[in-house]
Structures are given as structure tokens and as C-alpha cells.
């Protein structure tokens, strides 16, 4: 596989951050080594739930307006990459929850929200697989992309009525981060590294979509 410049930077950044996270970042006083999963979990959630989903929403709205196939390719690429990152969140979360909360899963607001975003991503990918016509596939998935983003506040609101167990974000909040600076540096670098990884995967997936569409166009 040929790596682009962005790919080389992203992979080196990810390797560097996790070497720092494993060997050069102190253990949490209460949770011990289990807490280190934070450096995968939180940045993946940032990418999968906010960045990738946000991009799907924006490009879907723009597609219905401008009808540019490039926008559809960005939306579908972002959805697929976002699906992978959200899967990572859903796998690392329970692994961390078992030793700390005592259960793999609780029907907590944040967990449920993440699960449903994952379902919407899955529905989006299955929907695309069930339509052959380019233009129709792009239109339908844009409709789903917009509705999915509008659903998020409602899922949040309706599960809010349950008590929440998940800690609030330590980084993306108005007050200062509630962590020692060693950990904050590792976490911030992990956010940056996974954002780079997302950008690279998105770009690769976009190129693949362009080639695939061109190949299918040539055949028909």
C-alpha cells in the first residue's frame, strides 16, 4: 500500500502518542492502568460522534442544494470512517466500564446516544448498498444524513431523564481540565493524532469512491 504524506504523518503521530500514553504517562491514582483506555476512547468519540457526523450532515445539506457528486462522496466516506471510529468507542467503552463500573453496559444517556448514532451509521451504509443508481443513492443518503443529525438532540433529551453514570468530558468543557498536566498533554496529542488519522482515512476513502464511481461509469 502506498502511503500519502498525510498518511505517514498520521501513522507516526498515532504510534508516537500511544508510546507516550503507555510508557511515559502516569497511572491514574484510583483506576490504575485501566484509565489509559481514555486515550483511545475519548478521541475516537470526538472523531466518530462529532467530527465525522458533523461532516456527513453538512455535506448532505450541501448535496441536496448543489447536487455535486463530490459532496456525496465526502459524505459517504465520512460516514464509513465515522462508523469505524464509533465502533472503536463502543468496544473500548465497555472494556473500560467493566473494571470501573462493574458492568459492561448501562443504559446511560451517553452510551445510548452513541449506540443509536452507530445504528444510524449502519443504516446509512446498508441503505447505500441497496441502491444501484448513483443519483438516487446520493439523494436518499443525504436525506438520511440530515434526519440522523436532527435526531441526536432528541435521543439526548429523551435519555436525559435517566440518571447518568458516564463522567462529563474532561477536556471539552468551559473550565480548566480536571487532570494532571502529563495526562492532559497525552490526551490532547491523542485528539490531534486521531483527527489526523481520520483526515487521512477520509481522504483515502474519498479517492477510492472517486475511482469506483469512474470505473462503474465506464462499464455502464
Amino acid at each position, binding site marked *: 500500500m502506498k502511503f500519502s504524506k498525510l498518511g505517514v504523518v498520521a501513522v507516526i503521530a498515532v504510534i508516537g502518542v500511544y508510546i507516550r500514553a503507555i510508557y511515559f504517562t502516569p497511572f491514574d491514582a484510583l483506576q490504575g492502568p485501566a484509565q489509559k483506555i481514555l486515550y483511545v476512547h475519548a478521541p475516537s468519540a470526538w472523531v466518530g460522534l462529532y467530527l465525522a457526523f458533523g461532516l456527513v450532515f453538512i455535506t448532505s445539506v450541501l448535496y441536496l442544494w448543489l447536487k455535486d457528486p463530490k459532496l456525496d462522496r465526502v459524505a459517504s466516506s465520512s460516514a464509513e470512517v465515522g462508523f469505524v471510529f464509533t465502533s472503536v468507542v463502543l468496544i473500548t467503552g465497555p472494556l473500560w466500564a467493566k473494571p470501573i463500573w462493574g458492568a459492561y453496559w448501562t443504559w446511560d444517556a451517553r452510551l445510548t446516544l452513541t449506540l443509536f448514532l452507530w445504528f444510524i451509521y449502519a443504516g446509512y451504509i446498508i441503505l447505500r448498498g441497496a441502491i444501484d443508481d448513483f443519483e438516487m443513492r446520493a439523494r436518499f443518503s443525504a436525506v438520511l444524513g440530515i434526519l440522523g443529525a436532527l435526531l441526536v438532540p432528541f435521543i439526548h433529551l429523551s*435519555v436525559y431523564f435517566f440518571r447518568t453514570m458516564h463522567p462529563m468530558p474532561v477536556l471539552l468543557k468551559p473550565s480548566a481540565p480536571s487532570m494532571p498536566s502529563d495526562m492532559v498533554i497525552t490526551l490532547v496529542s491523542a485528539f490531534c493524532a486521531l483527527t489526523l488519522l481520520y483526515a487521512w482515512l477520509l481522504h483515502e476513502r474519498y479517492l477510492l469512491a472517486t475511482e469506483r464511481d469512474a470505473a462503474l461509469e465506464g462499464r455502464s
Partner: protein
Amino acid sequence: MPPSTRVAPVHRRAPGFVGSTLAIARKDTLIELRSRSVILSALAFAVLAITIFFFAWDPTAVASIDLAPGVLWVIFTFSGLLGLHRSFGVEQPTRAMDALLAAPVDREAIYLGKLIANLAFVIVVQAISLPAVALLYNVPIGGYMWPLIGVVLLASVGLVAVGTLFSSMAVSTRLAELLLPLLALPFFVPVILPAAQATARLMNGRAVSEVSGYLSILAAFDVVFLVVCTLLYPYTLEQ
């Protein structure tokens, strides 16, 4: 050969937006009333589900009043899906949708007409399964019938608004009826969750003011998704 009778051509004005919406709602409801195919299977499903759910739990461990709200909302959801799939499926075999699109009718009116017909379908199923659950699970609903009907209607509008749009999309895909629940169910959750919670509170004799929070979530969902789905519906049609 009978003598031909010449009938003077009738010049009728094309109906406006409301007129065509109601005409489409009437058309769909008439088709269903005359064939009665889907409504009967939905009702049979409702009664079977009431029976199966009762035996899926140990009646000595779980009180039927705790079971009833969940059973009701599972029945409403899945029987609703049966009706929603029919909504556009009925246009498929003869490609009647093409004729509808060629008619001088706003596309938004097609969506709203279908929505009203689907709402009527869902309400008929609810009007029969709600008393059936009350009767068979021995849950007296007389004391809070109006608030309960309010919850059910508010939730139904939300379910049908989203479901009608996805039904339009699903029939055009290769997966057809398999895709509808896959797309619609994640969207049903924020409706069913507050609706089932509100139903449970009402059945447990809590005050109506305690469920007002849930009612406002349902109302907000209805408004947002009715508007957005009406605007997005034309994009789910052939252009």
C-alpha cells in the same frame, strides 16, 4: 347496441393544496378499507402479541400493570411498520406513483395525504389494541383515558411522520420492506421512550403534571420532524 348518451364534459377546477392532500388520504384509506388486507393482519398481530407477551414473563413475578405499557408500545411500533410499508408498497405493482407524480399535485401534498392515511391506520389499530390490553391485562384505564389518548396521538404523529418518509425511500431500494424497520426504528426510539414512560406513570396513578415533560418532548419531535420530513420528501421521489 345501447344508444350512446353524450355527457357534457365536466370542468372541474384542480383542487388546491389541502384538497389534493385530503384526496390522497381518502384514496389510500379507501384502498385499505376495500381490501382490508393489511389492517386485518395488523390487528391479528396485535392480539397475538398481547398473548405472547403475557406468557413471555412469569406472571407471578412481574405484575401485569408493569408489563402493559411495554406491550402496548411494542404493538404500536410493529403494527405501525406493517401499515407504513403498505403506504408506498401499494403504489408499486402498477407503478401508480408515476401517475401521482404526473398529476398537478404538490409533492408535499402527496406526503401529507399519505401521512394522514397512515395516521388513520395506526389510530384504528390503537383504538382496538388499547382496550384489548386494558381488558386482558386487567389494567383499568378509565380514570386517565384522555391524557393517555393524548400521549398516544402525540407519539403516533411523530412515528408516522418519520415512517412515511422512510417508507417512500425503502420501496425504491433493492431491500424494500427489509430496509424500513432498519431505518425507522432508531428514529422511533426518542418517541417510544417518552411515550412508554408517560404511559407507565399514568397507569400507576401518577398525576398528569408528572408526564408534562414527556409530552413536550413528543410535541417538539412532532413539529421538527413533520416540517423537515415534508421538506425532504420531494427528494425521495424520482426527479
